[in-house]
């Protein structure tokens, strides 16, 4: 589970800056994420943690610095020793190894659960339909929703929808999974089922970046906790250190609210 120190990081973020109009949201983020590592990003609302996550697959473009995933610079390429912005299709190609789970689930409401899961594997990755369906059924079993394959998202509870969304993201066999506050839109009694699905994934060695407010999940499942505030990384380290014995006053005051 713990990252091996001599391998190359899967994600490298260097001096990442991002602003919306004149509001600077990210003020120089440096983070490395090793293959197989589970990193939980904590921080108060507005700390820039969701924005940072969205920069990793270029849903937001950054204004300074760079982000590299699996050896490729996201959104750009070197061409004749000059950095060139990628075309939309080039960016689309880079995103294909990154799975994402959204706060609002964002299942395709006009498709059944099964169609939701096979859409990208068949349509984007060119998998054979038969194989994709086979794989989708296994994934549904993994998230405990085998009997829901033919249901429409509307017929599912929030927790079930989010588990389908996780299966959908896994179906593209991602090298990296991004979770953007996956339990924030759920009723409290439904949070547990989604977190336990995510805990299983963490155990299986998937590289995950999880933006969340669930301190419990961070403590149990994370290899590393990154605490962000005001657009910078304030503190990072093992969960028992950052959560159990925070050094920075801002981390302390943030965590004190959960005790």
């Amino acid at each position, binding site marked *: 589970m713990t990252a091996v120190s001599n391998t190359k990081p899967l994600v490298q973020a260097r001096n990442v800056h991002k602003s919306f109009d004149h509001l600077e949201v990210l003020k120089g983020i440096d983070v490395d994420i090793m293959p197989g590592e589970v990193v939980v990003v904590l921080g108060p609302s507005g700390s820039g943690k969701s924005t940072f996550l969205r920069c990793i697959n270029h849903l937001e473009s950054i204004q300074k610095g760079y982000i590299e995933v699996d050896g490729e610079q996201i959104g750009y390429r070197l061409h004749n020793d000059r950095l060139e912005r990628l075309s939309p299709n080039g960016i689309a190609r880079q995103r*294909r190894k990154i799975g994402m789970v959204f706060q609002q689930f964002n299942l*395709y409401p006009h498709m059944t659960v099964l169609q939701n899961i096979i859409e990208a594997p068949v349509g984007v990755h060119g998998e054979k339909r038969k194989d994709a369906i086979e794989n989708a059924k296994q994934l549904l079993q993994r998230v405990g929703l085998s009997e829901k394959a033919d249901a*429409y998202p509307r017929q599912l509870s929030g927790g079930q929808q989010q588990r389908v969304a996780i299966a959908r993201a896994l179906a593209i066999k991602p090298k990296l999974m991004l979770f953007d506050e996956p339990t924030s839109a759920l009723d409290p009694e439904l949070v547990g089922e989604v977190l336990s699905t995510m805990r299983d994934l963490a155990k299986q060695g998937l590289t995950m970046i999880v933006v969340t407010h669930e301190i419990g999940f961070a403590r149990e499942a994370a290899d590393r906790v990154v605490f962000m505030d005001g657009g910078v990384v304030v503190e990072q380290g093992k969960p028992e250190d950052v959560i159990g014995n925070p050094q920075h006053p801002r981390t302390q005051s943030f965590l004190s609210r959960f005790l």
Partner: protein
Amino acid sequence: MSTNPTTNAPPSGGADFRDVVTAHTPFRTGRLVLWAIIAIVVLDFVWIVANNENFGWPVVAQYFFDPTVISGLYVSLGLTVVAMILGVALGLIIAIMRMSNDRLASGFASLFIWFFRGTPLLVQLIFWYNMSTLFPQLSITIPFGPSLISWDTNAVITPMTAAIVGLALNEAAYMAEIIRGGLLSVDRGQAETAEAFGMTKGRALRRIIIPQAMRSIVPPTGNQLISMIKATSLVSVIAMADLLYSVQSIYNRTFEIIPMLLVAVIWYLLITSVLNIGQSYIEAYYGRSERRNGATAKPAAVAAAEEASH
């Protein structure tokens, strides 16, 4: 709480009389009277229409399936279908251009919509029909250079082409706004999700956005189609032999103006009625994921899934 023992006592037979199962709706005399009055008025109106000889019902019956009328009907239907298909296709392109970040594309789309929505259809039709007075020759040329191929405008712009071009371009302007509204009605998160999964813009539109936009595009499009059927009657001014033109050509000979117009009216009503039915089926199709009991779509599977989710 209740001090009156009779309210709580069950009536004979054991059933509580407050149980709504036993309720009945009292007979409403007022409604019946209203129905009766309206029925009398309607019947009287029908009787007047049926017995007024000026309506010329025998003439209506005689000409209803007249070959001239039927060929005019085909022209109207054909024009509607062709102009509508072209209008929707072009409208989709214009809508996407209008929503694009590219200034050139969105500027062109806005200009197109501004012009074709802002001028009367009748004027546009007459304009197209009289193209030859503006440009006697249509040529493909190298800009400012020699011409490669050239046609006589009057040979290209027949009443048929003028009608199709006029109706389709006008329709495209309206459809573009309807389609744009539909695309905007889809949750922004859907496009973002498609993007995050590495879909190209085209695929995201085709597979994710348009199917969801259809729910708000279909009803106004049905409206447009019905308008289009009626708008085809305008082409009679450019000597295109549509339904209206053919009944006019008959009453110009026979002077049976009202009966012949009734023939056209009844045909227009028949077509629009059929279209209304078609529209409700299309709406049901695109609304299938909305219904909680997907009775028509996938009875067994969905019903079972539903049972379990409750």
